[in-house]
């Protein structure tokens, strides 16, 4: 496990170093992200009838979760669509490796987006948002999205091309999170949407969202382990 965490840290540093090679892009990339998400958040708040600050925070949280969902299937492939067999040449079970690297990625996303949200909120509203709510919402959303991401990773292992499905699921996350009037009891079970609902109604216990998030993660990890066995049995680890 230590080796995996160290490797994940190397990956974080390498990614950060690459971003810092282009400082203008780095700074203005985050600036643009912050501004766009705040604007989208305001629009979402207006359409869904929630308070502006909450709407903005919900957008940041949803974007962070969807980004993680998008990144997980690409964690071990360097962003390219080459066969997954190389990931299986490391001395770790695939599911554990994906879980650790995804956790570090989630932390990276959380730090980045929470930081930007904090600065944006300070700039626009002139007061600091409640850090517990921001971090809690982000953590809940990332948990559910990670589980769904692991499921997508498992599908990608076996079927190789799943981008269309991934896009549809991402749209579904946003739709479930921001469609006005969509307040069924089961929303806590829906990744991202459960966390966004809690942000809107923090008086409700976050426990169901947390439990369903953990369930998603558990199901996702199981699926990755099962998919790993399937690709070995079918001989398709190196299948293009």
């Amino acid at each position, binding site marked *: 496990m230590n080796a995996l965490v160290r490797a994940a840290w190397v990956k974080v540093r390498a990614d950060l170093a690459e971003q810092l090679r282009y400082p203008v892009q780095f700074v203005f990339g985050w600036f643009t992200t912050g501004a766009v998400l705040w604007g989208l958040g305001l629009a979402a708040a207006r359409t869904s009838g929630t308070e502006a600050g909450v709407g903005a925070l919900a957008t940041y949280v949803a974007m962070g979760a969807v980004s993680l969902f998008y990144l997980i299937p690409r964690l071990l492939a360097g962003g390219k669509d080459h066969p997954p*067999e190389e990931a299986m040449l490391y001395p770790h079970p695939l599911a554990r490796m994906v879980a650790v690297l995804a956790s570090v990625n989630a932390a990276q996303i959380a730090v980045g987006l929470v930081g930007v949200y904090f600065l944006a909120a300070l700039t626009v509203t002139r007061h600091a948002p409640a850090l517990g709510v921001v971090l809690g919402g982000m953590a809940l959303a990332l948990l559910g999205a990670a589980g769904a991401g692991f499921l997508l990773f498992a599908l990608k292992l076996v079927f190789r091309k799943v981008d269309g499905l991934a896009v549809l699921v991402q749209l579904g996350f946003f739709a479930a999170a921001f469609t006005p009037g969509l307040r069924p009891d089961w929303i806590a079970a829906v990744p991202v949407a459960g966390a966004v609902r809690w942000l809107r109604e923090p008086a409700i216990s976050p426990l169901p969202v947390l439990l369903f998030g953990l369930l998603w993660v558990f199901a996702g990890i199981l699926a990755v382990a099962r998919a790993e066995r399937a690709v070995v049995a079918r001989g398709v680890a190196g299948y293009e």
Partner: protein
Amino acid sequence: MKHDHWTGGCPDPAEAACAQDLRVVYRPPFARPKIALVSASLRLKRGVSLGVVGPNGAGKTTLLRVLAGLIRPDRGEARVLGLDPVVHRPALMRRVGVLLSGARHFPDRWNVGDALRFVAAMHGVPPRRVGELMEAFGLAGKEKDPLSALSLGNRQRLNLAVVFLHDPELILLDEPTLALDAQTVEAFTHFLRERLDQGMSAVITSHDHAVLGKLVDDALLLDQGITRVPRGPVADYARVALVTDRPVAFALPAEVRAEGNRLELPNDPRLVVQLLDRLDLEGIRVMEMHTKTGVEVLARARTGGDS
């Protein structure tokens, strides 16, 4: 490598690798199954390097994938360093270095040092090892070079360095010399020989049979998914080829094959000297002369030997 034990199971846990009568069928979802190996066997002692040669699509990479635990064979048995490669793949990967299809992939935005440090961390190898490997593979001074800017040759040096980072007991190399210049191939041969002398074992496939001949102690042929074992040590297949200024008119020893002004004979120094003396006596000039490694000859024969 001995040639008296190519059949039977894989009972000896001290062997570096053993595969017995492997049959592998690829079963991609929603596509027709494809038979990749029909009956493949090999046995590899520790400290020995084995070349696997054969035409495109013969199943060479598949055989390496089975040994790396990436494919469960339909039939047959495989053992690598005494372990079932599928069941014990993570444990095995601590002890085995693998290069498949001649490449390892990393994010292009990374630099050489990032890629090596990532793999080193994955294997729990101290970071100082990265510097040693960069030195050994001619990558010193390129630590900060982005992967996207590397030449094919340097990219291949990196691929090879990655394989050796954790000091493996066995390496499985598929096309390791792709895009390498002659000097680098020479350096890599030297590096590999040193490791083999220290007890490392290797299974290597390559279409560059001349280079492969320098890298391996023995070889087997894989053709249409079936391994064929040479009738004797692969070194015995080595040949010397000559081109003379005119066809030879005198009676040649039985081992020498003549076709017009081209002669080919076993790489036996006494026989070569005998032939050269006779050519000199007859006033025949040698226009060209070169050696062919046993691997080259074996690969050319394709169907020679016992299956």
